[in-house]
């Protein structure tokens, strides 16, 4: 009986998605984010594209794909803002890479892990955006920790149903 090695476990739990899902889900997340923000400005605190980027990264378990997916989602998001293109792209590239790396080693299907992961990645995203704005763009920014904690908490809560919904788009093995 062959024992499950580290590599084989990774290979067994790698998920794939159809090209339509790969393209449409991030676009849908961005459109939904825009529409929600327009509906009520407090919803702009959420980051649905970030949640989607984390989901694809941990599901595919490939840091390279996670990096590219994060970069693509971030760049799309940047195109809609008035900021220079690349700010969100860089942040989500890093998060995609780390999320995929964690996905190899940790069981990311449990609810607790998902909540914790989204909370931490949301905080990390805010920190990277702050550093890019302050160091690369020379903006006068202050990190508002309470606001960022609330944002991370909101993203974690919203991520639970989003992850459950996106689980249904996984290709059957």
């Amino acid at each position, binding site marked *: 009986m062959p024992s499950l090695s580290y590599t084989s476990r990774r290979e067994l739990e790698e998920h794939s998605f159809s090209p339509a899902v790969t393209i449409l889900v991030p*676009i849908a997340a*961005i*459109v939904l*984010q*825009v*529409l*929600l*923000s*327009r509906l009520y*400005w407090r919803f*702009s*605190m959420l*980051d649905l594209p970030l949640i989607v980027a984390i989901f694809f990264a941990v599901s595919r378990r*490939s*840091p*390279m794909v996670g*990096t*590219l997916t994060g*970069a693509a989602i971030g*760049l*799309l*998001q940047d*195109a*809609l*803002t*008035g*900021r*220079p*293109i*690349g*700010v*969100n*792209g*860089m942040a989500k*590239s*890093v998060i995609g*890479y780390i999320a995929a*790396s964690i996905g190899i080693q940790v069981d990311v299907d449990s609810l607790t892990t998902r909540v914790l992961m989204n909370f931490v990645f949301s905080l990390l995203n805010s920190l990277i*955006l702050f550093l*890019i*704005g302050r160091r*690369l*763009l*020379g*903006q*006068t*920014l*202050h990190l*508002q920790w309470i*606001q960022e904690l609330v944002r991370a908490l909101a993203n974690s809560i919203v991520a639970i149903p989003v992850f459950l919904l996106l689980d249904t788009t996984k290709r059957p093995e």
Partner: protein
Amino acid sequence: MESFFSRFKNVLVLVVVLLVQTIGLAIQVRRPAEIGAPDGKKVTLLRAAVMGALAPIEKLVHGVGYNFRSTWANYIDLRNTRQQNHDLKDEVARLRLEQAQLAEDALQGHRLQTLLNFQRNYVTSTVAAQVIGTSGTDQSRVLYIDKGSADGLKPDQAVMTPDGIVGKIRDAFPHTAQVLLLNDSSSGAGVLLASTRIRAILRGGQGGHVVITNLTPDSRIKPGEKVLTSGGDQVYPRGLNVGTIESIAPDPDHQPYTIIQVKPSTNLFQLEEVLVITGTQGDLPPIAQKDLAQGAAAAKEMAAAKAAADEAAAEAAAQSAAQIIAEKLPSVHEDEQTQAQPGADPTKAPITSPPVPRPTPTLHPDRYTPGATPPASALKPGAEHSVTTYPPGASPASPPRPSQPADQAPAAPTQKPQPKGESPNTDN
């Protein structure tokens, strides 16, 4: 070598992706010379492509929502149309009065500006647009509207609502445009504090606030003061409403400057429709001139009516004062009554005046008592001082005697001559 790339391919991909984006970021940040300026061509193309893909979806969703809301709102409005119509008529009447009051001042101000060769831009044409989307993040305060370069929109055109300014066009695509809101961190506007006339620069702060950070502490600047556009930025026409000062606090990062937080007069978080200012001119537009002329004519009519009313009130007040005086002076009053009404109807009851108070009768008359002094015509210069004639003891009811001529005067009792310097009453 091959094993190195295959072993570190993930990290290498991450590094390359980050490096490319950093270089792209550096190019973009270097390119715009000023804050809030439009992007370079390639960036604009990328944004236009993304907007071209997303705008139809946003327009569709907005259209469905808008139609639903407008249908519901129309139904609700119809239920209250009569009351609203009444209220609006009242408001129109009030506004006409206000317009008439302000028109003369406005005309005078305009004349003075012309005399001083003062350059001012008046809004002549606007394009109404509906908000179809946002950036979706609170780190960039931009809006997307459903009008673009095909409708005459260009970058750096001011965007406003009837309440005040909103922002400016940052990028104009064929059928959509990106509006940079006032509260974005890259936004800026030249403003003027309404009462102190201090010029300042308005910027977007963190958390969607609008702040002025280039002023040092000044005791004249107080919360509640209105903030207007100064026109100095060549984007917003002068005199448009921006907001009111909400708070003033020292800036911890840039001493000795202050952070003056301004509350925008427009709710920047809940915008549905906006106006894009597409044209300005140095002179008043014809419609505004006509309005002003009407207002000035109405103001003149009001002034004439007010003057007539004041005159009538003054006459009435004068008559009333004369009547009061006449009533307080009985003799004059009686004479006036008889003169004024020579042929007055005797059947009518005469106006009874209050009884005239009479002096109380003298108990011990002396030479100062009324009626005791002989008339001046009876006196002879150089004649000896005669003894004062005392009037007979008068009863309280008897009135004082009027002075009589010398021939009719009662014979004065002879008085014993007295040496000079002696008092007549010093016989004790």
